[in-house]
């Protein structure tokens, strides 16, 4: 029996600088499911993640994106985030001068306000953050620094997962979370993600390589090529890509 779709992408077309990059994406992610999107460079993977999260400059020209049955395409990025969408960045952005704690608290409180819940005070929040940070091996020193400033590649990715843990999204998009990670860092980050798998949290894992998917095992795998999903299957499809490369997959240019 099909579970209710948390994320539903219908015939989505989108342009960047007037050039169409996504040519009609259809995708449905059920509650608690983890889907992977794989594809060669230039297939539109990052564009898809930015279009979903509502980045300015990525213009939707057709189709729809539904989160829990509600269309997102008229909403700004901050509204989508407060509705429960989360994007873990491929390249997390450094924010010199912005204290990590006040950043995290501003984000969490924005979401709580949206849900009509009481905001957390500073003291209570520090406790929550420390507990989550510990699971991801994030030191107190890292928490005290400005957002992403002076973090290694692995630390930045762990910090993304920390934000996901705190914001408790219903739909998380992980954009090439494995890029720039060594084997050990990949393991820590993947374990962090796996801890956050939840029947009420779906994930879209965007990656070029299969290796991430042996740590975060997906329910479904989709191949994105030339701005279209050309093939879908179970986790074995990722192994097929590993074996034969994208060139070995039908319909992949």
């Amino acid at each position, binding site marked *: 029996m099909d579970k209710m779709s948390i994320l539903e992408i219908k015939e989505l077309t989108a342009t960047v600088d007037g050039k169409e990059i996504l040519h009609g994406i259809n995708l449905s992610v059920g509650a608690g499911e983890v889907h992977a999107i794989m594809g060669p460079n230039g297939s539109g993977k990052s564009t898809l993640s930015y279009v979903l*999260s*509502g*980045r*300015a400059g990525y213009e939707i020209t057709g189709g729809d994106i539904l989160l829990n049955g509600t269309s997102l395409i008229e909403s*700004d*990025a*901050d509204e989508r*985030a*407060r509705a429960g969408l989360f*994007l873990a*960045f491929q390249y*997390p*952005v450094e*924010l*010199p*001068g*912005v204290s990590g704690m*006040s*950043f995290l608290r*501003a*984000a969490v409180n*924005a*979401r709580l306000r*949206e849900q009509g819940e009481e905001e957390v005070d500073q003291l209570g929040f520090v406790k929550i953050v420390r507990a989550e940070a510990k699971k991801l091996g994030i030191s107190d020193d890292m928490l005290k620094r*400005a*957002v992403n400033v002076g973090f290694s590649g692995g630390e930045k990715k762990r910090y993304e997962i920390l*934000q996901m843990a705190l*914001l408790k999204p219903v739909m998380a998009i992980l954009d090439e979370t494995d890029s720039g990670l060594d084997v050990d860092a990949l393991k820590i980050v993947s374990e962090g993600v796996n801890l956050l798998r939840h029947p009420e949290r779906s994930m879209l894992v965007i990656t070029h390589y299969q290796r991430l998917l042996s740590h975060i095992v997906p329910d479904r795998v989709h191949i994105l090529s030339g701005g279209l999903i050309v093939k879908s299957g179970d986790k074995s499809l990722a192994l097929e890509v590993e074996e034969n490369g994208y060139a070995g997959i039908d319909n992949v240019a």
Partner: protein
Amino acid sequence: MLPNIHNYDVKNIWQKTYLDSFLAQGWPSSKNEDWKFTSLSQLLTDSFDIALELGGDIAEKQAPKLPGNKHKYSLIFRNGVLDSELSHAGDENVRFSNLLDDDHALSLLKNNLLENHPIFNLTLGAMQSAVLIDVSETQVEQTPLIDLSFVGGIRKQSAHPVVVIRVAEKAQVKISEFHASANGLSAPIIVVDLAKGAVCDHIRCQVADLDTSQLGLSLVNQDAESDYNNFSFSSGGDVSRAEMHLNLNGENAQCKLSAIYLGREDQHLDITTRLYHNVANCTSDQIIRGVLDDRARGVFQGKIRVAQDAQKTDGQQMTRALLLSRETEADTKPELEIFADDVVCSHGATVGEIDENQLFYLVSRGIPTAQARAMLIEAFLIDTLTHIRAPELSEQVQFHIQDWVLKSALLSANNV
């Protein structure tokens, strides 16, 4: 237009020389290199009468925040005239007296070689109140804090108060200058003279109403081993210039000058520094940040002059401007004049906009755009604020910054 002096008689004959010099030159135009970006002859379109008496109410919104209300040593000038009822009389540690009665102190003022400087000449010629403050080395635990408030003001009148603060050997003092006039032109001169080993933390907060003109001149002299830390905040006035001339006259003296200016609408905000390394082994560090919105214009001119004998000088200067609108303009003119050969001097300047990547990162976490913009503007300024050593002095400035930033961020978010 030039000030009217028909109603004005100089109190002392020596003042007439200065006033005549001013009148002969008039307000400077952009042809004057020092006023290239701040052409007062164009910017000051009103004519002014020289203010003669106390004037202008202290705006209600300012009254509760007047620092003078809570500190021991305070002077309040309204329309350039000392309001002795509201001011404190001083004591043996911090002595207040009439500047004109003290020849040495008067020479500290007059000996500054500011040839043909319009504000210097005009204010010396027209000063209404001239106060001398002597700070001696105190045995009390708490460093004395002197509050100087410049408030009130009357439309089309110009205020010209003078304060000379003489800090004795090894004495320590904190100075808080608060400029919040509601009307007219304000052109005060503040002189700080630091004897050997004296330490001074000085904050200047200029938050005057937008239809005033604010032309402040600060003159600082440092003897050996003295330590001067200045922070200047400007967000008021349709025309504002905070100009400082600082002389390092004794070895191993150090100074740190930081400044923030925040401009919106059609404001013209100018920060000008003239730093003279006259002797060896002194350090100076300048950090300036400006944020400009709407059609505001920001100017920074910074000169570092290192005399031939001033070896081992360390002089640093860094200025950055953040433009929130495409119609703003930031002009920067660093000048290094180095006559010694063994020095470390540098300057740098950048002008930029809010980084779209950073903004997207914040909003992608659900933080509303206005709040995200405010966070980034405050982050841009925070380095400068960490230079303030006396936390009790930075509170007021932080309040004004947050207020300004929030307003800008909200307005821009509504316009998107």
